[in-house]
């Protein structure tokens, strides 16, 4: 498969055409459709339980029947979850971590990838690429303990520190994606701009960075999903419980409010909704991004 994003997005479409051509001879595969529809229950039932539990009263929620519809329907649990977890504060902190991670991952890796690709014949840049790639083999748990110490030492045991760590641990993969993409951009485009007197700075921001758009979208969406949902890093790095992100805040329902299932589920629902909404609106890049990362 080519490395240009256009071709990759065209991939499924082209294949769809093939299917349609074959569709003239063979009809829709209803048995497979029905099997797949049944399989969606494995996804939908846990989500249904989350939603229906969230709207139940505390009295109904403790009866253990997860699959019943809420009767009566109540919003009380959302109000309680909102105050118990201090949702606005957690939300603001999660948004801060995610936005910083998204912007940081795109900009830091795109800049590095551009420098590396354009100077591949220079040892420093070539070696930097392999140095950054090594991060793929260093999982967070391996360096976690010294990292916790160091972030505490330099005052980064806070949401900003977590965002930086997200940028670092995604660096290898993102730089790899960007370098592969940059290599498919013809140098002639850039040269004509340089002849017109543009420097490296203008070339990058006016020409290269806009061309990287689809790749940046993919990197950004995955950065958002990963940082919004992460539990491990914030729970270990952020020392002040008041500064915790949304996923970590959910822990209070295991310890302090363990019988208010309806409140817990309302809180879970509020925690998972933003990522689902972002996914539904950006599906195209989620799908193409994963396959780009794998196929190229």
């Amino acid at each position, binding site marked *: 498969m080519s490395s240009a994003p256009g071709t990759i997005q065209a991939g499924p479409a082209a*294949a769809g055409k093939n299917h349609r051509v074959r569709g003239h001879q063979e009809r829709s595969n209803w048995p497979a459709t029905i099997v797949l529809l049944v399989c969606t229950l494995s996804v939908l039932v846990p989500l249904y339980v989350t939603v229906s*539990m969230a709207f139940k009263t505390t009295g109904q929620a403790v009866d253990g029947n997860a699959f019943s519809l809420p009767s009566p329907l109540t919003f009380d649990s959302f109000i309680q979850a909102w105050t118990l977890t201090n949702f606005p504060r957690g939300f603001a902190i999660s948004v801060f971590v995610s936005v910083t991670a998204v912007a940081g991952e795109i900009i830091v890796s795109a800049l590095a990838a551009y420098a590396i690709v354009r100077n591949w*014949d*220079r040892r420093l840049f070539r070696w930097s690429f392999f140095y950054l790639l090594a991060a793929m083999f260093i999982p967070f748990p391996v*360096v976690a*303990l010294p*990292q916790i110490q*160091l972030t505490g030492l330099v005052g980064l045991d806070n949401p900003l520190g977590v965002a930086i760590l997200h940028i670092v641990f995604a660096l290898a993969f993102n730089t790899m994606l960007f370098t592969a993409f940059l290599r498919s951009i013809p140098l002639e485009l850039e040269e004509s701009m340089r002849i017109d007197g543009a420097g490296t700075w203008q070339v990058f921001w006016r020409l290269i960075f806009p061309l990287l758009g689809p790749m940046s979208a993919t990197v950004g969406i995955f950065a958002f999903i990963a940082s919004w*949902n992460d539990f491990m890093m914030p729970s270990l790095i952020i020392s002040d419980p008041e500064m915790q992100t949304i996923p970590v805040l959910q822990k209070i329902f295991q310890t302090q409010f363990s019988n208010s299932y309806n409140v817990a589920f309302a809180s879970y629902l509020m925690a998972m909704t933003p990522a689902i909404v972002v996914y539904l609106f950006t599906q195209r890049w989620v799908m193409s991004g994963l396959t780009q990362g794998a196929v190229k």
Partner: protein
Amino acid sequence: MSSMTKPSTGAVVTSPAAATTTKTRKSRLDPLYYFFLFPALAIFTLAVTLPAVLGFVYSFTNSVGFGEFDFIGIRNFIAVFQDEGVLSAYSFTLAFALVTVIVVNALAFLLALGLTSRVRFRAALRTVFVIPMVISGIVIAFVFQYLFSNSLPLLGQSMGIEPLATSILANPDLAWLAIVVVTAWQSIPSAMLIYIAGLLTVPAEVYEASSLDGASPWHNLRHITLPLVAGYAVINMVLGFKNYLNAYDIIVGLTDGGPGVATRSVAMSIFRGFEGGDYAYQMANAVIFFLISIVIALIQLRFTRGKGGIAA
């Protein structure tokens, strides 16, 4: 060099890029490029290399995470190998990763096959199947924890299935199954999308030609589809295994390592380094874990090169 990066993104276009850059900019280097590269190198060095080196040094000491310490040689490493808690964490994590990789790949491949066949509502089905990927591991683990400890036992009792009548999360022999289920639930979508991409690279004509020759669908699957997606299976297994070795969020949400220490992963045992004052000891554990991860990755990459299907 190119063999080193074979399974990676970089490898495919390495040489042409090198050629074009040589042509244009051998002589003069804009110093701005250093400035472009610097942030990535700086944060990587400070946030990964430095802690990795520190951790390596600490693993030969008796540090408790603060204050003074002495170098004690490889005593921590010897102790790790004699620590039953740590050994059980390793065997649990490896077994869990292996089972999960198999379950995830089998189901993801079947779903991908289904979603690339002539089913109705294909786009909608795919949208639904991908949702688990975007849900927080710890949050969905809490949801499943409720289902496993409340709803499933009710179901088991009413149907008279003995092992399900009590919470499987409280059963040291079965709790790991729950972790496999939830981890698979969350990781199947990404593996499935990669398989779909792989299946779509097989031109429809290949199947048509094969069918004209009288090949059965089973024959097509066995002799056309499976060999062509083998490379994608390797990607899925390498990426998946790496993630499952670091399992943490879902286990915390489901069992928190229990009952007892039955489902404590390596990551969980390392993080305990800050609780019991065995900081340096757990660093030795982390060094061992790192070496094991590297060895597994190298074995997988070796296997990948044999298959040679990825960069194609």
